[in-house]
Each structure stands twice: as structure tokens, then as C-alpha cells.
């Protein structure tokens, strides 16, 4: 009887709207489409386990239904790569972060991270300009950008 109820639970999950499934059974930052996919997978897993349990006639009544559901969900999250949900949430439109004075010997420096980008910027100046760069009326600005890896394109 309990097995049957589990299965019905899973089918109900699929029938529920995406947002409801999302709020009930998904980690923060997971999209509604993914939530439905998870629900479908959950249904399949439950069905498969039912089949195996009926065949082996083993009984594991010690584990409650919610605990088992959670276990299944964790397995599925791992399988489809939702284990780093915190990173997923920080990627989407979050407030940027800055650390000032990250390089102690530069006149000014800041490490800025936003939307998956992390850039360290340093400023030196005003310093003596090379003779050929020197402008008599204003200061010369030099901007250097270095890529993270490989040769830039």
C-alpha cells in the first residue's frame, strides 16, 4: 500500500505546476523547467524501485516516506549536477562584490567580482611618464588588460 502511495505522490508531483514543484522539491535557484524534469525523474526512480522491491520481496519499513523522497532527490540532484546550487544562485543578477587594497604595493587596487567575472585592477599614478608618452597639458592614461588564460583573441 505504501509503495502505491509513493508512486501516486510522484505522479502528483508531475501533475503539479512548475512553480509549485519548484517551491516544494527544488533547491533555491533551480528553474521551473528543471523542477519538472526532476519530478519526472523522481517518478521513474520510484517506479523502478517499486519494481525491484516487489521482486525481491524485501521490506525496508524503517525508512519513512519523506526521508526516502529526500534521498532520491539528493541522488537525482547529484546526477544532474545541482549539487552546487549556491554557485548557481550567485551567478544570476546578484549584487557585485569588491575588495579594496587587494595589492598592498600599488597606489590603488580593487578586486571586483560580479556575474561570474573576477577582475583585479591596480592603479599607479600619478607617476613619471616616459618622454614619448608625456603630454604637456594633461596626464597620460595607460590601460592594460590581461586575460585569464591563454593568448587573448
Amino acid at each position, binding site marked *: 500500500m505504501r509503495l502505491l502511495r509513493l508512486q501516486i505522490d510522484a505522479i502528483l508531483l508531475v501533475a503539479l505546476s512548475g512553480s509549485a514543484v519548484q517551491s516544494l522539491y527544488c533547491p533555491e535557484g533551480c528553474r521551473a523547467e528543471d523542477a519538472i524534469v526532476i519530478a519526472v525523474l523522481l517518478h521513474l526512480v520510484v517506479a523502478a524501485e517499486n519494481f525491484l522491491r516487489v521482486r525481491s520481496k524485501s521490506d525496508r519499513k524503517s525508512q519513512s516516506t519523506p526521508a526516502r523522497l529526500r534521498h532520491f532527490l539528493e541522488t537525482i540532484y547529484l546526477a544532474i549536477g545541482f549539487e552546487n546550487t549556491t554557485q548557481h544562485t550567485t*551567478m*544570476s*543578477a546578484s*549584487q*557585485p562584490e*569588491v575588495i*579594496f*587594497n587587494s595589492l598592498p604595493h*600599488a*597606489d*590603488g*587596487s*580593487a*578586486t*571586483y*567580482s*560580479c*556575474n*561570474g*567575472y*573576477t*577582475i*583585479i*585592477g*591596480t*592603479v*599607479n*599614478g*600619478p*607617476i*613619471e*611618464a*616616459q618622454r614619448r*608618452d*608625456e*603630454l*604637456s*597639458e*594633461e*596626464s*597620460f*592614461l*595607460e*590601460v*592594460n*588588460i*590581461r*586575460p*585569464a*588564460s*591563454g*593568448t*587573448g*583573441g
Partner: protein
Amino acid sequence: MHVLIQYAAPGPRERHLETLLYSTLRALILTHAQPRSLIQLTLQILRTPSAAASSAPVPQTATHLPWLPPLLQTGLLALLNGNVPLTGTATSVLVALSKGAGNSSAIVLDPTEKEVAAASSLHVFAWSSRGELVLAESEGAFEVGQWKEAAEAAKKRCIGAKGGAIEDADVEMGDANGVGAVQSLDSWLRTSVATEMANSTRWRGEV
């Protein structure tokens, strides 16, 4: 024995971004205050969203626009930290326009990699704290009306709905923009700098 260290070298894309940053920042720095001197700004990219997934270098065909806002923000924060005299601050944001149903288009601020790939056009806007547009770069197919909408959306994100009312900034910081409202980038910048100033002058014991 021969040891070779292959360091990450800037390419044409970096050079192009340098030019864009140069012209934008030159307008913000009071260059006439210090004649015959050099202000050297170095920006090292440590991590990009695509590099987080794999260590492979970014393909040459990839758009350079998503790099621009973080680079500009970092540059400006470094200049602020280095006490370089500025006319004001600026904040910038990446906007993606994607085709919606029919003729409508959806505006996405700070789009993710996926949204960038799916977008019909990409725009980078930088707004100064006084409400002036200091940088506008666009890529892709779009119409003038869409561009204006995108610019307005970017302005809202950068300097808030008030449109650069500096005198209101203190009030804005004070009540932290309520609970539900998203803090504008300009007020975020002000808060960060104020926090940093408070931390670095703590020894005075004036706080």
C-alpha cells in the same frame, strides 16, 4: 636546462577593450589636474563565467561586450582606491535583448552566458552618477526604439529610478532602498566606498 613560462598575453580583443576603457575613463579622470604625468591602470582578469566551467581559453569568435562592464567597474574602483582625481563616478551594465513573442523583445539585465548566446542584440551602457551616458556599445540587430528602451533599463539599474539625483543618494543609502527594491549600482558603489573609508579611517576613532 631550458625553462619557458608561457604567460597569458593580451590579444586584439584585449587591445580593443583597452581602447574603449581608455576613452571612457579619460573623460572621467581630471587629467588636466596632473600634467606631464602617467596614470597606469592594469586589469588582470582572474575568472570568467566560461573559464569557471573549463580552463580552455575563450574562443576568438566570442563577443567581447560581456567583459566590458566588469572591467570598467574594476577600473573605476581601483582609480577611486588610488585617490586619482575624478570628475565623477560611472557604473555600467550589460543588456541583452532577446526576441519575444511576435514583435516584442525582452530586456535582460546582467544576462547569463546562455542568455547572451540566445540574445538577438547585446548592449553595454555606462551611466555617470550625474545621469550622463558615457559609454554605449552595441552588437547585433536592433531598432532605435529597442535601443532607447535598453538604455533606460540600464540607466535604472545603474543610477536608480531617480535618474542621477545625487542629493538623494544619502537618503537612499540610509534606508537601504527598502526591502524588495534592488539597489542601484551607483548606490552600491557609494555604500562600498563609504564602508571602505570607514574601515581605513577607523584608527582616528571619529566614527
